[in-house]
């Protein structure tokens, strides 16, 4: 039984663990399949009952150019390994998602974004080229110049255009492993959005939003801004700018009982988090791991939602309707009393690419334990998002219908058409079946 990070849905999948391109070519000839990285996609995007290809043996770092910062690596390399190798040499991923336990191939497939999206765009923006294995067994170099259409549709194409074998992408030079973090409490949604706009120049920005607090404090948040600390900002740490403390990993030892995460505990957690932000307002120097990957320290944190798993909801609402859309979403959530531990709000910059998720506006991400009430609530949230011109992040989705996707994102039809036309339908995940892609 296999699942995504949300542990919902779970399906029996025939998993292959190939070692070579020749192995992959043989598998492609056999029938429908989907590539899978480190299983951090939340829903069914990397589940293929007829064939799931575990790509983690393609895990070699191939070359690095210290002039341009361009790294060439195989698709199964973990971002955590890239950081472990290159941060001590003064380089950091130009774009990183909220976990470092993703593969590079997965980052391409989902076109992941990070806390700097408003400034630096999504992962695809720093990808120079990819090598893609097609349904015909051919390997094609795809870039903005070469096979440009295939390149564009693969960035965010959820693995449905072929198998990414290798890629070249840019790292950015940094002077230290530390981040200058500024914490700004925002008592309501309006303030939070105003703060995002006011700090549009910050390299990193994200807000943790209390989605259970209703009424006047609807959307109260804790906004975090960050900048890579320069050597002259490190004080005593200057002598060893990359010597950040090693984190102690904790592991969620067992599946939490369903009851553990009720509205009371979530409400208390969110309130606590907000008040901590109020207390800790101002500037602090934090290490890269704590700033970018706070949840990675809690291995298998997906178990806190219990055996039935959880579903993420992440949408982006265009700038012009963001205030109205977010207010409607938050009202509906707080009225339902079904809270989410982790609700994240972020201002996004302009979108790129024909199928990638981000667009200029505000993105809201929440997770809910899987139960009938939460699933019904998420359908209401779908409708509100569509009413406000928003769309959904496929890397998080586990449950929306094909009709919902098409109503929110006309590009889905184009992807399906491209797959048909190019003979790519043998790259097939449960998500592709569900969403009719």
């Amino acid at each position, binding site marked *: 039984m296999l699942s995504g990070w949300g542990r919902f849905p779970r399906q029996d999948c025939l998993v292959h663990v190939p*070692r070579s391109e020749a192995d992959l070519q043989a598998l492609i000839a056999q029938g429908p399949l989907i590539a899978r990285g480190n299983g951090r996609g939340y829903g069914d995007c990397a589940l293929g009952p007829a064939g799931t290809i575990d790509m983690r043996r393609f*895990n*070699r*770092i*191939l*070359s*690095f150019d210290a002039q341009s910062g361009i790294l060439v690596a*195989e698709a199964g390399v973990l971002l955590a*390994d890239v950081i472990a*190798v290159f941060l001590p040499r003064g380089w950091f991923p130009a774009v990183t998602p909220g976990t470092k336990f993703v593969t590079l191939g997965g980052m391409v497939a989902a076109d992941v974004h990070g806390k700097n999206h408003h400034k630096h765009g999504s992962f695809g923006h720093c990808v120079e080229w990819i090598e893609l294995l097609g349904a015909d067994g051919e390997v094609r170099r795809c870039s903005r110049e070469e096979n440009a259409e295939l390149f564009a549709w693969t960035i965010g194409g959820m693995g449905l255009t072929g198998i990414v074998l290798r890629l070249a992408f840019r790292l950015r030079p940094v002077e230290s492993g530390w981040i200058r973090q500024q914490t700004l409490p925002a008592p309501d949604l309006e303030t939070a959005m105003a703060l995002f706009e006011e700090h549009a120049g910050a390299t990193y920005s994200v807000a943790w939003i209390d989605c259970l607090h209703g009424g006047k404090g609807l959307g109260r948040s804790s906004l975090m801004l960050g900048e890579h600390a320069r050597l002259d900002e490190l004080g005593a740490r200057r002598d060893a700018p990359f010597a950040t403390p090693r984190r102690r990993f904790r592991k969620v030892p067992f599946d939490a009982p369903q009851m553990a995460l009720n509205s009371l505990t979530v409400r208390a957690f969110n309130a606590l988090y907000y008040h901590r932000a109020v207390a800790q307002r101002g500037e602090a120097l934090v290490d890269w791991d704590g700033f970018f990957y706070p949840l990675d320290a809690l291995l298998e944190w997906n178990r806190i939602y219990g055996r039935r798993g959880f579903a993420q909801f992440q949408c982006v609402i265009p700038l012009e309707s963001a205030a109205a859309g977010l207010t409607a979403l938050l009202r509906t959530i707080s009225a339902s009393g079904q809270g989410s531990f982790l609700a994240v709000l972020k201002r996004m910059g302009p979108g790129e690419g024909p199928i990638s998720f981000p667009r200029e506006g505000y993105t809201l991400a929440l997770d809910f334990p899987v139960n009938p009430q939460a699933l019904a609530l998420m359908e209401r949230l779908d409708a509100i998002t569509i009413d406000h011109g928003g769309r959904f992040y496929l890397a998080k989705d586990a449950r929306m219908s094909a009709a919902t996707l098409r109503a929110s994102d006309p590009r889905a039809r184009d992807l399906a058409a491209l797959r048909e036309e190019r003979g790519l339908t043998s790259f097939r995940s449960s998500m592709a079946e569900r969403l009719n892609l």
Partner: protein
Amino acid sequence: MTSSVLVIGARSDIGLAAAHRFAAAGYDVQLAARNAAQLEADAADIALRHGVRATMHELDLLAPGTFGAFLDSLPALPQVAICAVGLLGDQAVSQSDLEAASLVMRSNYEGPALMTGLLAERFEARGSGTLVGISSVAGDRGRASNYVYGSAKAGYTAFLSGLRNRLAKKNVHVLTVLPGFVRTRMTEGMDLPARLTADPGQVAEAIFAAVSKKRDVIYVKPVWRLVMGVIRAVPERIFKGTQL
């Protein structure tokens, strides 16, 4: 001067894991295998990840006539040499097909022993070095299910033991590694008992620790020492009637 490690059978999962482990400790790595050019991605990966030199060297362990020239061609005589070559074969085929059996015997005994022996000569002449031979618990007692492979490994174990005895006072360390079950290409598709099975990374870690501590013989998972102790202790009269 940086130390270097020679990995013979570098394409094997255990060999590659060992190369990474020694590179992580700062050793330059010499990767030897047949079709060594196919190891280019691995060599690049090792060099980049660990900031060491990684070189590739063509070697066919079934061609002993080439061994001397092979060793002469290395960028330096290594400090540590690991022989991770093994061929399990198919017992059912090996017991009736002489050529197949011969290939298993030569791959697991003749080639590894001759190469280890030649390295021993060079290490002895230099007055230092560590020889690591990956043998097998299958060599601890011949069993119907794998005695062609097992007998070749038994030969290699005995060879290493003799070499250790000979070189004990010559500052050349000989380590015999008995991995037990390991999740590798060799065992892919087999149903292995989890408690008796190691990952290649664990084998590599055990090798590295044993080299540092100058151990003589290690079972990667200590439980194997007990298991094989029991298997060896069963009287032959009873053992021959068992199915193991």
